[in-house]
């Protein structure tokens, strides 16, 4: 053994990297992408909906290659999740749904942001390991939904 590290993730990158992670998280949690274009504010309906919004503290979405106001809308049943970049460049996830309590929506947002972070880190790590010449020896999703990757490379 050489060294053991514990790392805290920062979700930082351009919009395409974020959308790839959003797609992965959505697929894992059974959410469907509704639309990716800019949304009109549905003020009449929004007033009746319970809403919860969470900002990923350790996140930064780069503005480049991104249209202002762009967001991804996901749906599962009658719950709608919106992922967007706020004015400070942070990643924001907002859940809304009729007939759902604030606690239910908060749980949904927390579950989604965790999966989004895991997918983002996985994509990033897998890409960088490949460019560094590592080969995947084995990879598995463990019982607690952790992802274990074992890689190897030979050096002179």
């Amino acid at each position, binding site marked *: *053994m*050489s*060294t*053991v*590290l*514990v*790392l*805290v*993730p*920062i*979700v*930082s990158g351009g919009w395409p990297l974020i959308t790839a992670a959003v797609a992965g998280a959505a697929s894992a949690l059974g959410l469907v992408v509704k639309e990716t274009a800019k949304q009109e504010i549905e003020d009449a309906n929004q007033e009746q909906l319970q809403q919860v919004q969470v900002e990923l503290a*350790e996140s930064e979405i780069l503005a480049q290659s991104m249209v202002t106001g762009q967001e991804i809308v996901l749906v599962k049943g009658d719950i709608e999740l919106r992922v967007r970049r706020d004015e400070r460049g942070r990643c924001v996830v907002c859940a809304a749904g009729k007939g759902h309590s604030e606690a239910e929506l908060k749980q949904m947002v927390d579950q989604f942001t*965790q*999966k989004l*972070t*895991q997918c*983002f*880190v*996985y994509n*990033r*790590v897998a890409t*960088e*390991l490949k460019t*560094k010449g*590592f080969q995947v*020896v084995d990879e598995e999703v*463990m019982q*607690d*939904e*952790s*992802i*274990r*990757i*074992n*890689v*190897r*490379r*030979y*050096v*002179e």
Partner: protein
Amino acid sequence: MAQHEVEIVISPSGEVKVHIKGVKGKGCLEYAAWLTEIVGKLKDQKLTSEYYEPDTKARIDLRQELRNE
């Protein structure tokens, strides 16, 4: 050829535990810095005994002379 092995566990919350194996000396610190940059921030790091082993290879040549007496 030396074999460098890295075991990475990404928890459901995105926290990452990395175990770098087979890399001696400061080489493992270079891996650690690289992986920290990729993921985000370092929370904890433990160096194991292999870190303190020299990263240069020692070679011993054994020669045997056979004499016919």
